[in-house]
């Protein structure tokens, strides 16, 4: 008896200690965060006391590759862009500005582009950056032996013969790029590509020093020692497994006097909570905030939201479920779920409702500068009543009382929450509808997509260049990303026209795209859901950082640390 009393007492004591520790933790958390805020300022004064131009950042993962022909992931693209430079670079408002090229002339038929290169650009080993470096690199990118993924994707159908060379049907020397002397690059395109200028800012199109690259062989771009730089920064202390590294101002960069930052240090941290803790302690100048932390930090004075250009939508597979072959059913679903509530409560990170395919603030009109979204307006909005009418009409046409539809999504936490919510919304607003959820890992979803083995799928897309075509050519009949049996000859014709006859008529071409997007939603081919945003804590001293709609997320050439 006495013993068990003892036991109970000890148990109670320890438990209460835990409880106190936990609740005390939350209470004091607030006060300490205030404390650390003040000490944070103290720290940053210490750091920036002598006007030191240094940022300390965290990176969500290691950099898997620094080979510009090979990079496909966010970080590879970002760090090759910081340390290297192509013909042009994305400057203010993400418009291409001078890079290794000073300017260019375009032939009358718009297929031959002649770039004039600067003569004062150098590689970090002292070699000049010449037109030959571009020829070598572009050929390497489409060479099937290189195994590049973005090579055929970004160059195929753009550079003359790129597709044939990649398929092994032509020699790499046949690629439409030539050096005319050391500082003139002549590029022949397969057909007019109005957005070619923006393509040249992408890593796949960066130059490579042939002698150095060949000398390094398989080791090329696997560590700092096996890299050459020609961009605003150099990458230091890096190799494939490095969990910390720096980018340091490149004094040999042709425009070094513009670059104000001396250094940015990076450490790998995937988890969000420690990122925030490190930020609050003043160890780092930026931290990511995921949806579950937004409520806690949205009132933080350093809380910032940056919109991204990725749009998420439902794909309707018209070939598997008879119901989805019916346009009224598709329309009803498109309008049948409340996107505002989804964005505000489930995502809760600054993401905005998407009412069309083209993201907000993307692809301005070539003359007026109005954005695509402003011009085409809200094409698909939530309207429960209209959705219900369309639904009933659709059911009547089908001759069915009820319909069962499978909804395929990723299995991440946010994807799961979203799909539960959407299922509930649709089943409430569209009587007779049963939604069965199928949640699978990302890779598996792509397999099911290719096999067209789904009814509705939650998918997303981000731009690969600055042109409406990057979103709209996905949906042409049998297009490489269609995989949903959507086919509208008029739509195909518009996209085809934009790519060919209208290639030299910017305004008409733009109008064709506007019309194509409208058509896409008259057919209710897809249902736009939301446009993603990034929530972060960013230290006030971090200034002049640009974010880009495609390519590298960040641009630091013009960044500086404020006092």
């Amino acid at each position, binding site marked *: 008896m006495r013993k068990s009393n003892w036991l109970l007492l000890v148990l109670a004591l320890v438990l209460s200690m835990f409880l106190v520790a936990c609740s005390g933790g939350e209470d004091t958390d607030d006060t300490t965060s205030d404390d650390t805020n003040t000490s944070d300022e103290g720290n940053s004064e210490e750091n920036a006391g002598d006007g030191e131009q240094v940022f300390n950042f965290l990176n969500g993962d290691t950099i898997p590759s620094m080979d510009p022909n090979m990079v496909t992931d966010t970080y590879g693209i970002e760090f090759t862009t910081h340390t290297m430079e192509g013909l042009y670079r994305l400057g203010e408002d993400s418009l291409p500005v001078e890079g290794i090229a000073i300017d260019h002339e375009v032939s009358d038929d718009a297929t031959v582009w002649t770039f004039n290169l600067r003569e004062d650009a150098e590689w970090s080993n002292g070699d000049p950056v010449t037109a030959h470096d571009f020829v070598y690199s572009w050929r390497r990118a489409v060479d099937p032996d290189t195994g590049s993924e973005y090579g055929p994707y970004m160059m195929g159908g753009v550079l003359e013969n790129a597709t044939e060379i990649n398929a092994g049907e032509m020699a790499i020397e046949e690629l439409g790029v030539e050096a005319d002397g050391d500082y003139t690059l002549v590029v022949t395109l397969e057909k007019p590509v109005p957005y070619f200028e923006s393509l040249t800012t992408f890593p796949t199109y960066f130059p490579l020093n042939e002698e150095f690259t060949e000398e390094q062989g398989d080791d090329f771009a696997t560590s700092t020692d096996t890299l050459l730089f020609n961009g605003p920064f150099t990458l230091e202390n890096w190799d494939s497994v490095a969990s*910390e590294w720096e980018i340091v101002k490149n004094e040999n960069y042709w425009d070094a006097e513009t670059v104000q930052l001396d250094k940015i240090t990076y450490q790998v941290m995937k988890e969000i909570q420690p990122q925030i803790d490190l930020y609050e302690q003043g160890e780092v100048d930026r931290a990511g905030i995921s949806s579950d932390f937004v409520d806690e930090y949205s009132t933080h004075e350093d809380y910032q939201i940056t919109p991204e250009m990725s749009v998420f939508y439902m794909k309707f597979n018209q070939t598997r479920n008879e119901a989805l072959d019916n346009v009224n059913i598709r329309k009803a679903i498109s309008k049948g779920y409340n996107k505002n509530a989804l964005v505000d409560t489930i995502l809760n990170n600054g993401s905005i409702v998407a009412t069309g395919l083209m993201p907000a603030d993307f692809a301005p009109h070539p003359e007026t500068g109005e954005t695509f979204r402003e011009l085409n307006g809200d094409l698909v909005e939530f309207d429960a009543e209209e959705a219900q009418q369309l639904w009933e009409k659709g059911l009547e046409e089908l001759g069915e009382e009820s319909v069962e539809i499978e909804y395929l999504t990723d299995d991440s936490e946010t994807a799961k929450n979203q799909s539960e919510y959407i299922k509930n919304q649709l089943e409430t607003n569209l009587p007779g509808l049963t939604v069965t959820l199928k949640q699978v890992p990302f890779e598996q979803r792509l397999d099911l997509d290719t096999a067209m083995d789904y009814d509705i799928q939650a998918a997303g897309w981000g731009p690969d260049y600055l042109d409406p075509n990057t979103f709209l050519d996905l949906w042409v009949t049998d297009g490489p990303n269609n995989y949903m049996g959507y086919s509208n000859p008029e739509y195909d014709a518009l996209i085809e026209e934009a790519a060919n006859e209208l290639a030299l008529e910017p305004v008409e071409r733009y109008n064709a795209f506007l019309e194509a997007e409208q058509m896409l939603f008259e057919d209710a081919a897809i249902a736009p859901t939301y446009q993603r945003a990034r929530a972060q804590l960013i230290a006030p001293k971090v200034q002049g950082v640009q974010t880009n709609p495609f390519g590298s997320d960040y641009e630091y050439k013009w960044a500086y640390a404020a006092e």
Partner: protein
Amino acid sequence: MTRYIFQRVIYMLLTLFIIASISFFLMKFLPGTPLNVENKLSPEQQEIILEKYGLNDPLPVQYFNYMAGLVQGDLGISFHFDSTPVSDILLGRIGPSALLGAQSLLVGTVLGILLGLVAAINHNGIMDYTSTLISVLGKSIPSFVFAGLLQLVFAVQLGWLPVALWGEFKHTILPTIALMIFPLATAARFTRTEMLEVLGSDFITTARAKGVNEFGIVFKHGLRNALIPLITVIGPMAVSLMTGTLVIEQIFGVPGIGEQFVTSVMVVDYPIIMGTTLLFAVLFVVIILVIDLLYGIIDPRIRLAGGEK
């Protein structure tokens, strides 16, 4: 003894061969391809790239090629970290994991034994109950919960230690503590139970009767016998630490191998998945072998076949 070891090593290699074969085919069932932007490439373009990596060959051919390389000690080249040999990545990553694992196993087991010992001597006393409570908590609360608590208390509130990241000794302290809770709890429970049993056995009574002092009873006669079963669990404990580091590495941002393993599965990087699986497998069988050999040293009653010669 030599013959026994030789025999065991042969079995070990056989085990590894079977593990390698099974994992190879299981891995091929993973959805997706090692391509990173497969949704942007046409099927023809995908073919061209897969061809380059030899992934279009029939499965038996791929298997044979991989095994042939493996026998020569070639783990292949990573797809994700393009053109980086798998061995470089494993070597670059094993250090932090091994350090954390060794530190937590060592400190955790030693403290656990002490705790169990105190509990057994103080049977049904307050120390005994405290020890039991710690063991129960340690076994039932997952290490990542401890990790979060430790970060909150010692890093965020008290500011004694860094929240996360890697580099100096101070960075290893919190992850080590978070990881060692499990071995500590396990060791404490085992030591206590075994000690109680041993202390109650006849030869202890005999020793007492012969006038052996309490210190000699506890450490020389008691603990030595009580530790034998503990050695059995150290093996699985070490292995569970390997998987335990997986979460802990993530939380503390430790550039270790567990974290690499998770990433490689996500990006379908076949060579790295195989490399890490085999590394874990090798560690596992080696630990088991070492433990079997240790038995003989600690308990003279267990002599291995042919050992007398």
